[in-house]
């Protein structure tokens, strides 16, 4: 196995340690804590009054559109980062190309803006 994957494996061990610690905390607490549930305690919290209707209420579709927009810009980062580390290698051609790429992406943002997607109220 390469050293590249080796360091990630260390991180996996570290993550397992974190999972173990969290599990240990929950386990210890499950031994020492009291458990006397009743109906009132298990109601979902709604500022002290009895909950009305379903807990899973509908939420605005806007949140979803923001998630979609995010995907565009995050994928863009995947293209930008490798180029950024190799700037000198691709020279002027790379710069112009990246300029065009960023311009098209900004056009997308402007389009979303024009369509009123970025408006909240």
């Amino acid at each position, binding site marked *: 196995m390469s050293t590249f994957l080796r360091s990630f494996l260390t991180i996996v061990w570290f993550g397992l340690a974190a*999972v173990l610690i969290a599990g240990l905390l929950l386990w210890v607490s499950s031994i020492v804590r009291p458990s006397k549930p009743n109906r009132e305690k*298990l109601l979902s919290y709604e500022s002290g009054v009895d909950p009305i209707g379903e807990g899973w209420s509908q939420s605005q579709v806007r949140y979803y559109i923001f998630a979609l927009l995010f995907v565009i810009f995050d994928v863009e980062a995947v293209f930008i980062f490798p180029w950024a580390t190799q700037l000198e290698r691709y020279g002027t051609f790379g710069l112009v190309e990246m300029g065009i790429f960023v311009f098209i992406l900004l056009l997308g943002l402007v389009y979303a*803006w024009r369509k009123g997607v970025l408006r909240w109220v």
Partner: protein
Amino acid sequence: MFAIDPMLNGELLWTPLVIVLLKVLAVFVTGLVATMLMVWFERKVISGMQNRIGPNKAGPFGLLQTLADGIKLFFKEDLIPERSDRFVFKLAPFLSFVPAFLSFAIIPLGGDFRDGNNGMVTWFGHTTRVQLADPPVGVLFALAISAIAVYGIMLAGWSSGSKYPLLGSVRASAQMVSYEAALGLSLGTVFLVTGTLSTSGIVAAQSSIGNWNVVATGVVPFVIFLIAATAELNRPPFDLVEAEQELVGGFNTEYSSIRFALFYLAEFMNTVTMSALIVTLFFGGPQPISFGGIVLDIPLVPNGLEGTIWLFAKVLVFLYIYVWLRATLPRFRYDQLMDLGWKVLIPASLGWFMLIAAQRLGRDQGWNTFVVTGVSVAVLGASYALLQAAFKVSAKQREAEGSMF
């Protein structure tokens, strides 16, 4: 499972294995202790700013207050609401807690970066880094992990089957993904300047104050990163997620006992990690402060340890800034928050990225510096004017529709 670790294949070498185990233990303990002290620090500093005394009973200066609170939470009844999705409800604290620790793994916690040592120190006759893992794409890993943390919050709110947590978590996800974009793009300039994605490489490139990325990239990416990081951490003034006055506690309203403690720990852990990441990326991490060839040397401390001291000193400054922001600024309105993220930070980070790219390429290819600067400033000015025009048009349209904001 053990067989896939190359260190355990063939001849067993104990020293590297012990070093890795020691590192895991040390980083873990450092993380936990730093988190506990951060909770105390925040309460103490904010009470000072508000003319109160703050925690002062448990231990000297109230230092053990966090521990006392944690022990108290152990003995609290754990309630899982009837309506909740039980499996996801139990899974969510893990999804929040584990990523908080994972991103700590790639931060150089010390080491000797002077005299071309490149951050290597010698332990038990082995040269190693004071860093748990040093993947060549360390910063990318940190970004990926911070994106996973969104799941913890989203699922916690959704699985509660209650209205406040659901609202809080949907807000949180939208906010975090919006600022994640700006966070990532502002780092592009850092990669341009340092030419690497590994955290130790980025630290090694910042040998003196003039080379610190905060200077080398112009201050703009740092400011964008600081704002986006604050939003990513859901800290004030961007704490709409748990806006107490409207959402009770946000995504963790239904959580109690130690499950709540895990979320709480994760939140402060993330604050510490993000401060350490800012220091690593923009302020030279464990590098000592030096300017014009003069290095500020801490006397009597070996160079290998000094890095750790510098790192903690720098991180402390940013932790203080976070507490300061919380004490000073009122909360944003949601539409203001989204406007800031999408209409200011993202275009600004992209624009600055292209500007620095042109500058650096110009220097590399021997273009006329004045022409490059002139053209860049002209393009930047034009973009700014276009952006202002867009703001004006959208404001006018809103006014025509009779919208309040």
